[in-house]
């Protein structure tokens, strides 16, 4: 079908444009996170993230040096210096000495501050203040200015996050939790889904109903009874209650209803003749499942794998409860979370961690995408 002969101009470009529009709308918030993760906290809170991409006018303030920096020139006392740091890329447009009016004077002009005192601030930040009388005090004049600020980004946030202590360990912890917690439910659910779709036994309809019903069980409700159970089992066998096995099973449990539900609906839709044909070829249910159903269910297995991976990867609560919150057991999300201050204002860290955690799921998404093959069933049956 991919080869169907030509389409009109509208059809050919319309789709591209429509998709592009949707993608843009969808990406704006994500882009916001990305940009924010490259800014420092102060910027995040004072200007919209989209302004970070362009040169913007921002106000700043500085102070002239104290009286001890003054030199006497031609009978006037002069203090000279620079408001900006050496490598500051800002260009000063205007300045003022009263905070209420920071743009009173244009850069490069001399402002009369009264009593014969003049102040000139140039675009590059250099200033010269001169006065007929000697300056006093070691706190200089406050100068406010408006400067054109070129886009400023920092990778500092990423460095903070990526090089924080123990991040490697929590990354491995996360993988240790996530990989089995993705594969185990797939296996268990696929078998169950096959049984619910293609095997005959009493109570099948009821089981399907139960599975759907269990979809809705709020995770929070299960935590306490389960942890109690774990502790009970732990003390009974004299083993720690919080183990990897425990968290795998927990994630498996929470992911199963959806997995069974999704897989069953797909597996039930496979052409019946193929299954029958295998049956006639002498295959047992187990063989049919492994050799026919599994390969043909790749698209749906892949999509479930993507989600389960994602949920487990981004999960914090279950990991904290069933694995523990000590620094040795911390999963990546937990670790990143621990980087945030107690009052959670560290948006730059939040956005940065959001971007760091996104990478692995995206890789998973991309690598599983190719199992979304078209026409997997093509050529198998005629009619229908």
């Amino acid at each position, binding site marked *: *079908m991919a080869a*169907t002969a030509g389409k009109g101009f509208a059809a050919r470009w319309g789709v591209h444009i429509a*998709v592009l529009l*949707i993608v843009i709308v*969808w990406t704006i*918030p*994500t882009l*916001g*996170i990305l940009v*924010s993760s490259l800014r420092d906290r102060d910027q*995040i*809170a*004072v200007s919209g*993230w989209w302004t970070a991409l362009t040169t913007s006018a921002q106000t700043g303030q500085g102070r002239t040096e104290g009286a001890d920096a003054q030199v006497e020139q031609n009978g006037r006392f002069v203090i000279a210096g620079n408001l900006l740091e050496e490598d500051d890329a800002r260009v000063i447009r205007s300045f003022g000495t009263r905070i209420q009016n920071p743009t009173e004077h244009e850069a490069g002009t001399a402002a009369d501050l009264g009593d014969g005192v003049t102040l000139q601030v140039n675009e590059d930040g250099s200033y010269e203040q001169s006065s007929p009388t000697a300056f006093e005090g070691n706190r200089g004049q406050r100068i406010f200015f408006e400067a054109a600020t070129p886009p400023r980004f920092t990778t500092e946030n990423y460095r903070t996050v990526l090089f924080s202590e123990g991040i490697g360990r929590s990354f491995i*912890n996360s*993988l240790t939790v996530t990989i*089995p917690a993705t594969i185990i439910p797939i*296996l*268990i*659910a696929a*078998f*169950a889904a096959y049984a*619910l779709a293609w*095997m*005959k*036994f009493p109570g099948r309809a009821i089981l*399907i*109903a139960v599975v*759907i*019903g269990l*979809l*809705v*069980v*709020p995770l*929070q409700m299960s935590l306490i*009874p*389960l942890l109690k*159970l774990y502790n009970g089992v732990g003390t009974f066998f004299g083993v720690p209650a919080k183990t990897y096995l425990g968290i795998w*099973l927990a994630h498996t*449990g929470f992911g199963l*209803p*959806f997995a*069974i*539900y*999704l897989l069953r*609906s*797909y597996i039930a*839709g496979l052409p019946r003749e193929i299954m029958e044909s295998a049956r006639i070829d002498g295959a*047992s249910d*187990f063989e049919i499942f492994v050799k026919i159903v599994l390969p043909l269910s790749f*698209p749906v297995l892949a*999509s479930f794998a993507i989600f389960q991976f*994602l949920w487990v990867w981004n999960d914090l609560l279950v990991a904290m409860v069933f694995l523990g919150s000590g620094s040795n057991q911390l999963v990546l*999300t937990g670790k990143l979370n621990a980087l945030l201050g107690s009052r959670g204002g560290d948006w730059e860290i*939040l*956005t940065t961690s959001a971007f760091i955690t*996104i990478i692995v*799921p995206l890789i998973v998404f991309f690598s599983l995408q190719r199992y979304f093959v078209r026409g*997997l069933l*093509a050529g198998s049956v005629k009619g229908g």
Partner: protein
Amino acid sequence: MTGQIISALLTVVLGVSGCVAYFWGANRLLDLIFPSHGVQGSAAIDNLRRQGLIRPWLFLGPALIILTIYLVYPVIETARLSFMDRGGQNFVGTANYQWAIGDREFRQAIFNNFLWLAVVPAACTFFGLVIAVLTDRIWWGNIAKMFIFMPLAISFVGASVIWKFIYEYRGVGQTQIGVLNAIVQSFGGDPQVWISIPFWNNFFLMVILIWIQTGFAMVILSAALRGIPDETIEAATIDGANGFQIFWKIMVPQIWGTIAVVWTTITILVLKVFDIVLTMTNGQWNSQVLANLMFDWMFRGGGDFGRGAAIAIVIMLAVIPIMIWNIRNATRETGGH
């Protein structure tokens, strides 16, 4: 570090292979106990019949056990707690439910939940479907999909930060750092405190969930779309159907089962979702929803398990119609089997 990697690898391999070993071994064992190969005539057939009785349960076994422990047992526990007092120690009859019915916030939450249920699943499924279809046939479709998928992968906290910065409000005339208000202001409008406008704020919160969950719908639906036999689409093209007609009349009906799955899943998710409400408004400005209310009663300030459990049970009861609808679907599908 390497030591840790090795032990992690070992754990992973052990965990996964244990699971594989169960299924393989259990089936093998069944074949050994009731052999059907190499046994003559009716014995083989009898054994086969026995196998047929047992095998479904081998397949279902682990799932059932895990579901029972991890979900059924907690549900029963929850149901029990919903008749208990706040500490879960004393039986209080239906007091918790009576309280709920009389509670203004609870009724508010029910109303809002209906709004959510009406909008979010439909919107997610619709957008997901449209995107899945559109991206399916262009060369950069996978990349486009990745962008739609991204919100799902961004941790929830990350997402909530950015939506904060979308709805952020600064006083009239100030520089807006929220995209929405910046746009409104640039068109000469007055900035709004979006999330505090009662009733409408529900929709602003819904947008977030739609933004996140569309990727979910998209992924599942694109897997399903790929399964549609191309021939039927070709036949429709030849019958003169245009893109829209093919979409609505040929593709959608054929993946109807999957659409139902996506719809159901998102509906249930909507019933369960509380983090959006929690982080954005915590139910203030009339934006409460059941799940957040439940969470609130369960864990806030020590919690009241009784009431939390009662709300949880209400949430679960809300799923019953969806359950019935799904079972109907399932039996219709399998009717021919």
